[in-house]
């Protein structure tokens, strides 16, 4: 592989590049999933890999998620390093047992005696009217059950470095990409997802949040698409004299609590923005961590903005109503700083 200098990449290209570089480096790495071959992945996460590595290492599968995700676990136990794609995270229900009762738990149940280096790659997110079974995030659900590292990048640079870390990790890693951040030619994407990506392989460590923007007035904690919308909101707010600090958690497991706590100790106000369902998920967890660790620093009640516990509706006005927008984020911050 020729090393190229840093250039702007879309998130899908960054992910595919990380996979290609690790496939080059380690013959044990291979890719399985529906339409990952000729099609290059429905969201282009595996674009170009088939041409380069052939059908032996880039395998299209039947629509049998339980079988092929379970097979990834079995192959990993033998020393392989599978990357397996679950096309949409919304489909987890047909294969959750192999994910959470086996891939996630086997290492623990074996007393640490086996390693399962599997990357479970999956698409998430709404905003393009794909309705209730193709628009969810669900990372909160996977972060709830022990044994999976949970990665949720917001931009191409992080996406590549986190993917490299994921492939090199000896543990199961579930890697969520937001479809609306992939930079696809056929789906509007958030421009902040495209950024400078080094040509050579590099890692972004797990469990280290990124303070995307510093600010003194309020802390906004988020992930993926909502990080970018929070940054948009922060621009608007800055013009109004409100300085928001925007934290991109990047990984939910491990979770960088300290960066959140430190920020709240500085800003005294917390807004959590989540494209996942509101209740019993990520937003609650972050609020709880702050209520445990920085309660006395809070000058106003914690605020949460998330999907209001309804399935994602199809129709545009309905979907727009339930997904947090930059405007809604800005408005929540205004209310929070006024409190």
């Amino acid at each position, binding site marked *: 592989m020729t090393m190229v200098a840093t250039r702007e990449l879309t998130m899908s290209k960054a992910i595919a590049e990380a996979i290609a570089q690790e496939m080059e480096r380690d013959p044990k790495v291979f890719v399985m999933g529906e*339409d990952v*071959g000729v099609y290059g992945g429905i969201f282009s996460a595996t674009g170009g890999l088939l041409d380069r590595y052939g059908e032996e290492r880039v395998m299209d599968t039947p629509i049998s998620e339980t079988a092929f995700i379970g097979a990834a676990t079995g192959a990993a136990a033998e020393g392989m390093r599978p990357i397996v794609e679950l096309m949409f995270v919304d489909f987890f229900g047909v294969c959750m047992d192999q994910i959470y009762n086996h891939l996630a738990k086997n290492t623990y149940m074996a007393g640490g005696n086996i390693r399962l280096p599997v990357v479970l790659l999956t698409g998430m997110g709404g905003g393009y009217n794909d309705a209730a079974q193709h628009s969810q995030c669900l990372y909160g659900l996977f972060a709830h059950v022990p044994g999976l590292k949970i990665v949720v990048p917001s931009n191409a640079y992080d996406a590549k470095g986190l993917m490299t870390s994921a492939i090199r990790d000896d543990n199961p890693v579930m890697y969520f990409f937001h479809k609306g951040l992939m930079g696809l030619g056929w*789906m509007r994407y958030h421009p902040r997802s495209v950024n400078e990506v080094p040509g050579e392989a590099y890692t972004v460590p797990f469990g280290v949040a990124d303070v995307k923007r510093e600010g003194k007035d309020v802390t906004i904690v988020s992930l993926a698409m909502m990080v970018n919308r929070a940054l948009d909101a922060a621009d608007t707010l800055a013009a109004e004299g409100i300085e928001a600090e925007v934290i991109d958690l990047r990984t939910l497991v491990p979770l960088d609590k300290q960066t959140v706590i430190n920020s709240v100790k500085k800003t005294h106000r917390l807004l959590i923005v989540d494209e996942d369902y509101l209740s019993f998920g990520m937003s609650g967890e972050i609020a709880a961590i702050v209520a445990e660790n920085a309660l006395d620093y809070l000058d106003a009640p914690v605020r949460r903005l998330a999907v209001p516990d309804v399935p994602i509706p199809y129709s545009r006005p309905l979907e727009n109503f339930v997904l947090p927008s930059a405007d809604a984020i800005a408005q929540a911050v205004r209310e929070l700083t006024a409190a």
Partner: protein
Amino acid sequence: MELSKEKLLEMYREMWTIRLFEEALAAAYMEGKTPAFDIGSGPVPGEMHLAAGQEPVAVGTCMHLTENDTVVGTHRPHHFAIAKKVPLNALAAEIFGKETGLGKGKGGHMHLFDPAHKFSCSGIIGASFPPACGAALAAKKMGKDWVAVAFAGDGAANQGSFHEALNLAAIWNLPVIFVIEDNSWAISVPRSKSTAVADNSQRAIAYGIPGVRVNENDVLAVYEVVGEAVARARRGEGPSLIEVKTDRYFGHFQGDPELYRPENEVSTLKGGDPIKRLGDQMLSQGVATQVELDAARDAAAKDVDDAIAYARQSPYPAPEEALEHVFV
């Protein structure tokens, strides 16, 4: 099976309704998506799976059903819905995301629910099999001779739900017919790379039930084979598995670049178009005149035009309605 002229014309017309509905949607779908294609733009956003070319399996099957029978469709559901007599206006309106749609705009193209006509579908592959068993179970419990049909693609026949549902239906002797529409593709994956048997109907052996494959994209052939299965189910003799060969004219979804597809596949397939085939048969057998066929087609075209117009004119739901209907 003897078919009256009326039935034949009804089939012909319904196939046209489906074809024209899909073509109208294909056009509407592109509105707002040029010059730059964005899946989320235009009057019909989101994924769009069209069934042009696959009319026979839907029409040939549903012609045997009454409004008491249940149909569960797939992610590619319009042909099933139309054949099951789901009102075209509410169907179109749902696909346009309107208040007047089947689900008030909440469901969208992959999630169509019409309890009055006992039609539903799902965007999850293989998800049709279990609820169809449940409908059949309910019919049995209520002492009715109603049947349920689960449609599924050839790709779906490799989901675990297929196996579980067929075994359950067999062991409980449920009045359900499993109909696999084999269009030889699951997105970009050809059937030969995903399915270990050449003929899914052979899988019936694994459940001790009848299995038949209809090897041509022909509505009359489907009608005949399904007729036996439905009669069997109504007589209380249990489930059947049927696979029907059919042809996907469009991409997997609209916007699919189809780089995986052999160049002339679709044009070759279109050479054996099933609507023309039925029309030609009716003409050659003297069952109908060209004028009658044209009238059927025109009626279908009018229905489709009306439905699309209705959908366009209908209002969007109010944003806050998003919060309603999680529970009844």
